[in-house]
């Protein structure tokens, strides 16, 4: 019998918005409808193929019978197992068994360190959160959140290798000693692009000790144009709080191309102010113009978005400069924009920028060409945007005077460098521009020493590979985005004794005896890096113990920003400006930064691999993305649409895991790559986007039989993943290449897309309004007032519950007088970056399930990041430029929860404080609850993902005979306060109930303290709500804490207007998801506001992306 289907009402007449999640839905295939009707994707709940059928009902009964019979023998030996309590012999300071300890540290990165607060349990770091004291705090992105997993990665490098063979540490130490004793050594150092004061200091000492030493800097995807345009080591940092108008020239500043702490940008996307405390005012909002080829997170936030190929960004920038009358240093020889629509777009933009001179901001993508950077700088200077207190400030970093990888190659070839110490987090053997032939030069080195956490291609090519300590295991320091001195302090000794940190290696080379000391010294002495960092810090905060303690506590030293400089507009360089637009036969290939693995360095991180790409919703692989029109021209569109169908005549059960994508052959720079292709909406025509970093190693299980090849370069997570586009990339075309061709092949490749999994339907799911007066919808105020009445809520009669809200004694069922939890999610500032999703995974012990299981719709993420596209039917400006609307959906904690009434064993019930709780140990796995959830927020453990390794081929199907999780350490990351769920159990978000319980209990302890302080008998104490209710806004959920955009607000509903949550629930933008079905959710959403410029030609098509899914 089929499931009863709730018939959502039709979309109202006159609705101009068309919204969709995937190409298949846009084309409205019958199969997509089927996805919608099921609570789990087709196939997710089936045991389809041969090896799975061993678990059929029949064989299950057989086994059950046998085991019951055998149980009689077993019972005789049924005794309580003996457990032990092993206390410390000497308790470490601050550690209270069972309580978390928090330390300030930071993650060093190229754009500036991410300040962090690390949660540790008995010395194990388990979770990361932003350090909110830090002046440059900006939340954490998915990369920072997932970096804690690297520490425990089973594939982490742990042995010293000599020519890719395991070697003795003593032999390597001898090499270091002999190097340290040779001051004339022709030694080179290849650093990453991050900035560390101690390393900068040691670099000077190294230069003094080794007369021939040379220093280089390399990371694969940091552009080199900005330093050329501005000066060596100079960088521009944006202050979004001051910027009323922002123009992004192909700059994904909210995503992978950070230009400074981005939180203040999102604060200004809320018309009521950051804390919802003001009247909505469109003037307080900023306005974002984005010029880009394919959707990025930044582009998704834009009020006005122009699709152009990256080569054409130049022409747009030149047009802006010309419009502003900027006498740029570079001769503007670019022709006028040919397209009249684009000219009109730029004209509107120019006027807006002029009106906001000194309060606007033009950002050039760091991988864009030099001419774009020169133009952007000239525009900013002309508008007076640069300087102290202005939206943009130029800062002099300490990474001055470092050579590039090209100069390194030249030096190696010339014999100036014979020994190279590779310290960069990138993987130059794999990711250096192909035409540089760095591999050949690298082989000429007499000695190469590679320090890294992975045994990647560079580790295998080097003479010596040394396993690197994780940043949570080493002493160090870093500079944040604006240069604040920021601490990197270890949480734990290196898990593996051979691990060495960057500073320790440099210090060994600097020391007189050349002895390599790492981790803990004899008798618990600190690492030499500790002494070195203290010495550096003495230059900032003085010698004393007090300043040092303060540094360790706060994680940074206030007032230590970089000095600001005033870079002149350069007129001495000529940059090529003109490029012809791509055509059908000469495509433009964009080598994109991947949102899961960045430049390839996180290929072995399971959380990042399984987090769906924010735009394409692809997991575990990379594909080439093309615009729908281009796909049609290539002749692959229909095949991609067929992705959403049970391809051919296969049985429906085969559908999910066998979803394949057609492959195309891409040729550019004389190299070719076969890669699957997917349609990407809102992408410029005739461009191809290929994210970099994949395809690092393959074994015999590879779907396309590419292996075994470089199998040892990656672990189980990274093996057989995606396609390597680095060989196509040359130094001159490091960001994009023109003249590419693509033709379809007959091959197909399976892709695990999550875009249609757990697809919701209903009216006005995501709502959007515009600050601009609209003919039909009225003024901004009218549109705001109408938000709660969008969709069905305009005319649906109020809901009447059939259930009594009281128990038999007429007591309310949800009756806690102290705390009633609630959440709001602001779609106006959410960009869909996955940070919350990974933070939730880290906090709540959510397993990864592997590519094949994701394909079947069995991913376990509690937060589902929905991504909708919405276009206006009558969009005459650009019909192929829809808006992108992200919407995170987790369990909304319905007060009248449909899931609770159907559970036969009361495993999911409501708590007194308004949570929809899950008792995992009670669940018997009927999945009725998931069936009944209109938000599709529940996830089911089809297998024992925590215990069995889902990444080994077919391992899950072997049941108890399957291999356990590999490695010694993965269980160490687990949060001890959250149950690790087993097979056959339903799970979902419970608002981080462990954090709430912890906060409430901590508050209860206060009663005792009060009694002690008052000096009265406890029986005379007055205990009231204020004693027992936690302070306003004092507890945060993991997702809320991680969010760089401040989009998630959580709190106690009893705090009302005193709390940010209470205020957010009172504003007009607040609405309940699927309000009309009467679930009374505790999580509400705040409608997205777009702030278009009425003078722009596309203004009236913006701000109407209200999503109906019917």
């Amino acid at each position, binding site marked *: 019998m089929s499931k009863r289907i709730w018939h959502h009402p039709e979309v109202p007449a006159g609705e101009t918005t068309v919204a969709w999640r995937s190409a298949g839905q846009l084309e409205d295939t019958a199969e997509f409808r089927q996805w919608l009707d099921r609570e789990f994707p087709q196939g997710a709940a089936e045991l389809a193929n041969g090896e799975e059928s061993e678990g059929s009902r029949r064989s299950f009964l057989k086994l059950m019978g046998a085991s019951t019979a055998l149980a009689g023998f077993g019972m005789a030996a049924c005794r309580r197992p003996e457990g032990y309590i092993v206390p410390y012999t000497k308790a470490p300071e601050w550690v209270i068994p069972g309580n978390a300890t928090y330390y300030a540290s930071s993650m060093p990165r190229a754009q500036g360190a991410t300040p962090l607060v690390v949660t540790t349990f008995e010395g194990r770091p388990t979770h990361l959160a932003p350090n909110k004291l830090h002046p440059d705090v900006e939340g954490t992105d998915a990369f920072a959140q997932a970096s804690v997993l690297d520490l425990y990665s089973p594939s982490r490098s742990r042995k010293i290798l000599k020519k890719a063979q395991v070697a003795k540490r003593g032999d390597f130490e001898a090499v270091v000693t002999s190097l340290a004793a040779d001051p004339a050594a022709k030694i080179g150092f290849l650093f990453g692009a991050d900035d560390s004061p101690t390393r900068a200091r040691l670099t000077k000492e190294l230069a003094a000790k080794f007369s021939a030493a040379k220093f280089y800097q390399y990371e694969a995807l940091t552009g080199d144009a900005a330093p050329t345009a501005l000066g060596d080591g100079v960088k521009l940092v944006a202050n979004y709080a001051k910027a009323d108008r922002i123009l992004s020239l192909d700059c994904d500043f909210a995503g992978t191309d950070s230009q400074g702490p981005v939180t203040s940008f999102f604060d200004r996307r809320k018309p009521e102010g950051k804390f919802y405390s003001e009247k909505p005012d469109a003037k307080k909002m900023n306005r974002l113009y984005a010029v880009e080829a394919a959707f990025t997170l930044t582009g998704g936030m834009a009020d006005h978005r122009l699709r152009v190929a990256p080569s054409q960004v130049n022409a747009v920038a030149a047009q802006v400069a010309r419009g502003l009358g900027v006498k740029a240093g570079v001769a503007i020889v670019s022709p006028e924009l040919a397209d009249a629509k684009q000219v009109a777009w730029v004209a509107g933009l120019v006027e807006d920028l002029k009106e906001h001179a000194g309060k606007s901001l033009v950002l050039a993508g760091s991988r864009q060409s030099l001419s774009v950077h020169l133009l952007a700088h000239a525009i900013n200077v002309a508008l007076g945007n640069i300087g102290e207190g202005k939206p943009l400030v130029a800062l002099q970093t300490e990474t001055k005077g470092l050579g590039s990888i090209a100069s390194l190659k030249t030096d190696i070839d010339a014999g100036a460098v014979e020994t190279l110490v590779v310290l960069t987090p990138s993987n130059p053997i794999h990711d250096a521009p192909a035409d540089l032939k760095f591999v050949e030069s690298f082989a000429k080195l007499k000695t190469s020493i590679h320090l890294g956490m992975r045994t990647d291609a560079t580790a295998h090519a080097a003479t010596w590979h040394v396993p690197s300590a994780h940043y949570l295991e080493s002493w160090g320091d870093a500079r944040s985005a604006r240069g604040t001195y920021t601490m990197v302090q270890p949480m734990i000794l290196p898990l593996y004794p051979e691990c060495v940190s960057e500073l320790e290696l440099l210090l060994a080379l600097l020391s007189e005896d050349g002895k390599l000391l790492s981790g803990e010294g004899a008798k618990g002495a600190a690492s030499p890096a500790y002494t070195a960092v203290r010495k550096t810090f003495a230059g900032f905060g003085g010698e004393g113990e007090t300043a040092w303690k303060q540094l360790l506590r706060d994680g940074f030293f206030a007032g230590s920003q970089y000095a600001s400089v005033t870079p002149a507009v350069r007129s001495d360089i000529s940059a090529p400006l003109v490029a012809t637009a791509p055509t059908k036969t000469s495509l433009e290939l964009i080598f994109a930064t991947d949102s899961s693995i960045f430049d390839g360095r996180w290929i072995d991180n399971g959380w990042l691999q399984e987090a769906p790409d924010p735009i394409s919703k692809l997991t575990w692989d990379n594909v080439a993305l093309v615009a729908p029109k281009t796909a049609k021209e290539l002749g692959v569109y229909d095949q991609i649409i067929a992705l959403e169908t049970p391809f051919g005549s296969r049985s429906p059960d085969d559908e999910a895991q066998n979803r394949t994508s057609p492959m195309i052959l891409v040729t550019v720079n004389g190299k070719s790559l076969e890669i699957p292709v997917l349609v990407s909406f809102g992408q410029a025509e005739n461009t191809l986007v290929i994210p970099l970093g994949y395809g690092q190693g393959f074994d015999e299980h590879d779907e396309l039989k590419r292996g075994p090849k470089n199998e040892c370069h990656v672990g189980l997570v990274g093996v057989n993943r995606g396609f390597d586009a680095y060989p196509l990339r040359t130094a001159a075309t490091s960001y994009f290449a023109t003249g590419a061709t693509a033709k379809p092949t007959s091959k197909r490749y399976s892709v695990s897309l999550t875009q249609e999994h757990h697809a919701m339907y209903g009216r006005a799911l995501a709502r959007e309004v515009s600050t601009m007066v609209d003919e039909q919808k009225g003024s901004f105020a009218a549109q705001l007032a109408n938000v709660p009445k969008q969709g069905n809520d305009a005319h649906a009669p109020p809901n009447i519950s059939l259930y009594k809200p009281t128990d038999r004694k007429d007591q309310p069922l949800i009756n806690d007088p102290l705390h009633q939890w609630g959440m709001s999610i602001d779609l106006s500032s959410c960009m869909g970056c996955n940070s919350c999703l990974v933070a939730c995974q880290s906090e709540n012990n959510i397993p990864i399930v592997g590519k094949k299981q994701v394909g079947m719709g069995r991913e376990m993420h509690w937060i589902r990041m929905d991504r909708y596209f919405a276009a206006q039917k009558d969009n005459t400006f650009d019909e192929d430029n829809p808006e992108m609307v992200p919407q995170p959906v987790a369990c909304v904690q319905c007060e009248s929860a449909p899931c609770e009434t159907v559970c036969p064993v009361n495993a999911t019930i409501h708590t007194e404080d308004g949570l929809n709780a899950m*008792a995992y140990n009670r669940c018997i796995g009927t999945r009725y609850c998931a069936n009944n959830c209109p938000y599709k927020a529940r996830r089911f453990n089809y297998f024992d993902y925590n215990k069995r390794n889902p990444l080994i081929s077919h391992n899950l199907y072997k049941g108890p005979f399957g291999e356990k999780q590999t490695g010694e350490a993965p269980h160490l990351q687990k949060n001890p306060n959250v149950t690790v769920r087993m097979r056959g159990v339903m799970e979902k978000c419970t608002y981080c109930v462990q954090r709430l319980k912890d906060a409430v209990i901590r508050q209860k302890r206060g009663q005792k303290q009060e009694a002690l302080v008052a000096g009265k008998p406890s029986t005379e104490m007055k205990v009231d709500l204020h004693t027992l209710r936690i302070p306003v806004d004092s507890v945060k959920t993991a997702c809320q804490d991680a969010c760089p955009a401040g989009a998630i607000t959580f709190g106690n509903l009893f705090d009302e207007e005193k709390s940010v949550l209470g205020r957010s629930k009172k504003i007009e933008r607040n609405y309940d998801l699927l309000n009309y079905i009467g679930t009374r959710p505790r999580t509400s959403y705040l409608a997205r506001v777009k702030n278009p410029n009425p003078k722009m030609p596309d203004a009236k098509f913006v701000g109407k992306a209200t999503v109906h899914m019917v």
Partner: protein
Amino acid sequence: MANIFPRWSNFLPFKIAFCAGTAGAGVALAFAYYATPKALVVGYQPSQPIPFSHKIHVDQLGLDCRYCHSFVDVAGHSNVPTGSTCWNCHQHVQRDSPKLAPLHRSMDVNYPGYDGKPIEWVRVHKAPDYVYFNHSAHVNRGISCQSCHGDVNKMEVVYQAESHSMGWCLECHRAPEKNLRPLEEVYNFDYSDSDVSKYTDDASVKTTQDLGLKLKEQFMVKPKVTCATCHH
């Protein structure tokens, strides 16, 4: 037609039903007696590496619980003392007792068998992994150690005194007055009805339970009984 079933078989169904019923009831009774936490865990009394006597330390010497279980009121987990806690006294007191050999091995650097490794105490009370019991939530709100752990002060060797089953937990969560005490009395194992008059002038409050009922109102004690209270 001849009778297939002889006359005696008339009562056979009743006999079978009676026997099956008796057997079923027997199994149920046996299960309740042998296989529930009350039968399985109450009285569990493993021998410890050091035969530590709570009777001597608490009852005779008068040590407070929190001298050794020092984090019981600030953490969910009630810690077992570190080796150095024991060593504080026992480097002076009863130093040469052979019973303290494991402590010497762990703490005494001059001891021949010194290895510095912690003492492995055998766990007596164990909540399953999916139960999150928080000691600090209870002892700071007037629930004594005694309520769950029994008369530990009288125990030569610690054993489990109560079943610690979910039903047992819920009994108290539904009617906490039986166990509620003034905060001063939480660690007092000799608290009795005679102590009640110290805390109230109300003549009608005679027993600890009367006082508990009063404190329940006064402390706003409303224990939760839904799943997420202990399972998350």
